[in-house]
């Protein structure tokens, strides 16, 4: 309950460590703080890396795009990702201790990411999403395609080649279906790219046919699509436009998730691409059950308005959606988290994520209690479901 208003509680202080969590002493895969790499089990499905400085991309970008890249391509659009009118918490979005001593954003120095995350937390696989770069690139056209390709080359050279625990999402100009599909085809041969990165707030809802070339390429190569928190729809971050405060912006981020899930369910895209899989990332879990209940009630009441949907929308979505855990919902009582998992009925499709190096990152040692969830569900979430989703070897 409420404490002293002048002393904010940081993410790391929010929860007490769980003695049964991985990396803890008892039966865990290593002693807390120093798990041995060989014992690492956790698969972290949402990690953010970044360029240390903007110019660091230039070696990978054809020189004819350098002037364009220098001038800054994003203009007003950038406002929509971080709700820049409001100062964000904790040095923008970063955990303060994740900022490299040499400067640059969190996640921009491999050695620090390795020691703070991979080594310290017993991470067997971590999937990199260069979201802070994507939000600054054009989302369509030749420039978007060139910069996306440069980011993927940079990802290979400076990250994937350095550590075999690392995997990555393919950066694509996702508002440009055909060019995005080409980039997917180009990268899919490298199996270290395990999914395609889109954002959650898109110019049109995700069921729109403009995105179908992306889906077609993704299913051709067996890659899931990530729909990652935030983005650029051109509208406010809330259903009611722009909020006044950063806190509202951040509370409202999950609002895009029901919109996108409803769009995908209604669009029939899963009839066209039966193997298409979406990972809805960084929105937590709690938004989904009430959406499914509402979708099903609406489907029953409005059959004539959805004559092409021959099954309950919840059935369809439960076959095509995956969720990452972070920021894990924090109900008032721990048992309500168990209730939430029961309501979700998605035990095989929830995958763990830290969201390192963001300020509200979830620590695998602390957030999900094995004793609360039971070892079966807990191990599914911490690594087994991700093994299935991404085809990682056990």
């Amino acid at each position, binding site marked *: 309950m*409420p404490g002293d*208003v002048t002393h*904010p*509680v*940081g*993410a790391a202080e*929010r929860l007490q460590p769980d003695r049964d969590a991985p990396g803890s002493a008892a039966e865990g895969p290593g002693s807390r703080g120093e798990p041995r790499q060989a014992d690492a089990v956790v698969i972290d499905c949402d990690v953010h890396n970044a360029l240390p400085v903007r110019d660091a991309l230039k070696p990978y970008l054809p020189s004819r795009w350098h002037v364009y890249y220098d001038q800054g391509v994003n203009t007003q659009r950038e406002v929509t990702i971080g709700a820049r009118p409001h*100062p964000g*918490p904790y040095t923008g979005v970063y955990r303060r201790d994740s900022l490299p001593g040499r400067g640059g954003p969190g996640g921009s120095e491999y050695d620090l990411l390795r020691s703070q995350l991979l080594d310290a937390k017993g991470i067997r696989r971590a999937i990199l999403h260069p979201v802070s770069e994507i939000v600054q690139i054009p989302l369509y056209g030749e420039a978007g395609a060139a910069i996306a390709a440069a980011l993927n080359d940079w990802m290979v050279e400076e990250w994937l080649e350095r550590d075999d625990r690392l995997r990555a999402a393919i950066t694509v100009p996702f508002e440009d279906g055909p060019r995005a599909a080409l980039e997917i085809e180009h990268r899919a041969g490298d199996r270290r790219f395990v999914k395609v990165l889109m954002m959650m*707030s*898109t110019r*049109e*809802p*995700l*069921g*729109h046919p403009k995105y179908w070339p992306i889906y077609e390429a993704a299913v051709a190569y067996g890659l899931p699509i990530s729909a990652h928190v935030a*983005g650029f*729809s051109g*509208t406010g971050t*809330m*259903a*009611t*436009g722009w909020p*006044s*405060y950063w*806190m*509202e912006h*951040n*509370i*409202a981020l*999950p*609002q*895009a998730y*029901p*919109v*996108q899930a*409803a769009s995908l369910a*209604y*669009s029939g895209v899963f009839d066209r691409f039966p193997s298409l899989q979406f990972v809805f990332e960084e929105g*937590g879990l*709690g*938004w989904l059950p*009430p*959406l*499914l*209940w509402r979708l*099903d*009630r*609406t489907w029953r009441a*409005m059959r004539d*308005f*959805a004559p092409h949907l021959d099954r309950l929308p919840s059935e369809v979505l439960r076959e095509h959606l995956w969720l990452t855990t972070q920021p894990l919902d*924090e*109900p*008032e009582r721990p048992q*309500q988290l168990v*209730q939430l998992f*029961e*309501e979700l009925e998605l035990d095989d499709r929830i995958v763990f994520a830290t969201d390192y190096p963001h*300020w509200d990152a979830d620590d695998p040692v602390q957030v999900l209690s094995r004793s609360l969830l039971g070892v079966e569900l807990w191990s599914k979430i911490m690594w087994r479901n991700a093994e299935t989703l991404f085809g990682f070897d056990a």
Partner: protein
Amino acid sequence: MSQIAAGSRSIDCDVHCAVPSTEAIAPYLSEEHWRDHVRITQFSGPGSLALTYPSWHPMLATDGAAITVDSVRSTVLRRSEIAIMQCFYGLESMTHPYLGPALARAVNCWLQREWLDADERLLGSIVVTPQRPAAAAEEIARTAADERFVQVLLPARVQQAYGDQRYWPIWEAAEAHGLPIAITFGGGMGLPPTPANWPSSFFEDYVVGTLGLQSHVTSLVVEGVFQRFPNLEVALFESGVSWLPPLLWRMDQNWKAVRTEAPWLKEAPSAYVRRHIKFGTAPLDLPSRRAHIPYLLEQLWSDELLLYCSDSPHRYEETFDELASCLDAEALDRVLWRNAFDLYRLERFVADGPEARQPEIVS
């Protein structure tokens, strides 16, 4: 027909009536030039009205000609002792700074004369223009003189969430006159109603219609409306309540971490919600498994949040019975009666206590 509501005392907090035609309210336009204007332009009502309660939609149509005092008497008032009328008129979509408020006044006068005067068991909601807060505050002050108006009615879909300071004159007037604010599903300002732009179908649009209510809950609390107006109460209608627990968790989680941005919040956001906001019971999006309904009730923490609604003429009574079957007698009475009785200070209109008249039971 709700079997459970029919067998117990109840107050129905959301009963619809609708302006049947511009001609019906034109005589109540106070100025002759507006009467001329709506006649010459063949004005058929604000744009968002038809989108919120489309006539072509069997589940949502609200036919102003078919809903009459007699029809409410023979349905709603056979089971409930009081019906609180909500005459949504879509005024938030009017850009005209004078015609919008003039129409609000006309609708309120029409409701007063043609409905409230016709049956003492009918109470009213004041329609206003949220996009014109000064005019809205004036209309609240004018209309509040008639105590049969027991709340101010606002739509969910507006230009900016209701915590914003532009709206504070409305809250000030409502609090000063002891009137709760009702925010209801629907409305429209011509702006995309989601953070991922426009939905492609009415089906999707309807499904995501609860997001506006979630924005208002967040905004009213975070922007400090309940600090500034500590006696203000809010009731949300027609968007259920099952989305609330995860929103409360997320609000509290964020507040713990970034509360330096909003130092006026002295308690967790959920505490303000539980103290100041109530939720109508129609329609409800209940868990698909009956065993999970008690989870929802527990997560809501209190049946003091719920207000019984039929949403007549829309039919959602079965979902209410499903919820009610999970409540004990005392909790059920709170939802059907006590919460509304206290919120709207209904001792002014109806007797409390076991001697209260039992409504006629119908099947």
